[in-house]
């Protein structure tokens, strides 16, 4: 186990170094001149940190939403959360275009929370045994809210603006000063980790949770805050990032189970690593041009997901 952790840590470190070294501008890391430092500090480092934070936060948000609805086939990107955040942001943009960025973020988070709450209310009414209805309900809800956003944006000639949130996300626009809100997403993930036992108990079922004296409502609320804040910040900063929140928690659960206190750090590292690897692939394939990481993930993530579907764990 310790050896595995060391290997994974080393891999993440190598990916990070590679990410600092790869990009459209060519720099020589050994030179350490003004140009190199400028590229590093203004572009490469912010981008790398943004990718790491996004991957980690999304994967942890995935764990959280999966334990809230007790279903492994959902992620923060398939529960209508991202689209709701976009709806909130669109509303602020239309109603109060001059509002400062933090107001916009709060509006996006609140809208994401409302969307997630709606998703949970729908899921609660679904028969428990029909495992696949939950992701289907999520996809339908995402689709509906997404089309509302698109329709409103179309009416107000804001389609291009909205497209940056709803289309596959990417990090090429990240420079210093334009990603720092993602640290808040990282903090939200940390908050989730501090309540890991509660989420783990919640996913044991209402009966067990009640028996152990856990009031599920508080935990549910906390979980919804985490999922919504992470989704809202990611969607508005870099756009929709698919699959990370879905597949990483699944892979980790297969290997080390659902003892979330132990597994959440691994999930975070796994999400960060997967996203960074995909971002690197996107940067390298058509160098010096880029393929959005969302597109790469669409392919890689769906392959992993298919593999997960065909090799189901004993319980879905």
């Amino acid at each position, binding site marked *: 186990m310790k050896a595995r952790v060391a290997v994974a840590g080393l891999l993440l470190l190598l990916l990070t170094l590679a990410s600092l070294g790869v990009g459209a501008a060519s720099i020589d890391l050994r030179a350490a001149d003004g140009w190199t430092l400028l590229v590093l500090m203004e572009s490469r480092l912010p981008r790398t940190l943004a990718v790491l934070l996004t991957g980690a936060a999304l994967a942890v948000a995935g764990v959280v939403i999966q334990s809230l609805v007790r279903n492994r086939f959902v992620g923060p990107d398939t529960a209508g959360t991202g689209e709701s955040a976009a709806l909130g942001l669109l509303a602020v943009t239309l109603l109060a275009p001059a509002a400062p960025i933090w107001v916009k973020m709060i509006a996006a988070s609140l809208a994401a929370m409302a969307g997630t709450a709606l998703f949970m209310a729908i899921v609660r009414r679904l028969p428990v045994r029909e495992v696949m209805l939950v992701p289907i309900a999520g996809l339908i809800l995402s689709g509906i809210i997404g089309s509302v956003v698109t329709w409103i944006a179309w009416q107000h000639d804001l389609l291009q603006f909205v497209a940056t949130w709803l289309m596959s996300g990417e990090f090429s626009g990240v420079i210093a000063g334009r990603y720092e809100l993602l640290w808040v997403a990282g903090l939200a993930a940390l908050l989730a980790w501090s309540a890991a036992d509660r989420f783990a108990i919640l996913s044991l*079922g209402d009966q067990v949770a009640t028996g*152990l004296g*856990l009031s599920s409502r508080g935990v549910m609320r906390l979980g919804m805050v985490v999922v919504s804040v992470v989704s809202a910040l990611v969607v508005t900063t870099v756009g929709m990032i698919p699959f990370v929140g879905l597949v990483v928690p699944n892979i980790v659960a297969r290997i080390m189970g659902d003892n979330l206190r132990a597994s959440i750090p691994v999930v975070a590292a796994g999400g960060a690593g997967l996203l960074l690897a995909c971002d690197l692939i996107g940067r390298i394939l058509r160098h010096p041009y880029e393929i959005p990481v969302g597109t790469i993930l669409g392919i890689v993530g769906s392959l992993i997901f298919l593999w997960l579907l065909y090799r189901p764990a004993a319980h879905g």
Partner: protein
Amino acid sequence: MIRINGLSHHIGPAPILHDINLTLPRGKLVALIGPNGAGKSTLLRLIARLEPLQRGRVEIDGLDLASTPTERLALAMAVMGQQTQIASRLRVAELVGFGRWPHHQGRPRPADREAVENALEAFGLGPLRHRFLDEISGGQAQRAHLAMTFAQGTDWLLLDEPLNNLDMAHSRALMARLAELVRGSGRSVVTVVHEVNYAAAWADHIVAMKGGRIVAEGPADTVLTEQVLSDLYDTPIEVSRHDSRPLVLHHHWHDQLGAPYPKASDADRFPLH
């Protein structure tokens, strides 16, 4: 003790419990028996706060169920409901460990670890401790679940049909554990038992329910009589003795095959001896 006053319950329009007044003694193994639909699981679930109280009052060792915080109640009673299927991929020892959560809220002390070890030991789960719940049998998972409620270490243990999924040896072992817990450490157990003979063999106090009402209550020898049981289950029942306890038997009536499904009023058609 558990005091229940004026407890009534409906599910939709259907009345499940009618004005139950009951006192469950401390330091005893109490068995709730009765036919399907008698309301015994509902009664247990209400005491265990797994269902919200609609009408009436429940008090457990002086704590009013309706006004005591749920985390405080978790130190007074441990509960095992009927749906023991757990979708989480936890290892057996991790699940049992959660039984101590009400005591430490995330920071286990040596005493907590010891309680977990004892619970694993008590249910023969040592060899399974590192196995995932979704990779063991239903009965083994059930034992893990029971061990979790044991580890909780509360004065009261409320169990809803804990013998489901268990084979004969494990059923006997569980009842014996419960009896030990009661006689050895003075704890109190309330359990819904489907198979009357486990109540006959192990219970100190039996509560017989039918149609949402309590029809008899007391030690095994007074409740498990042919009269009470035949009325309770609407089928003729014979009571013999075994190991100085009642042994409940019923006839198979092969010669009655093809006759209409028996109703209470048909009891005369089946002579007892």
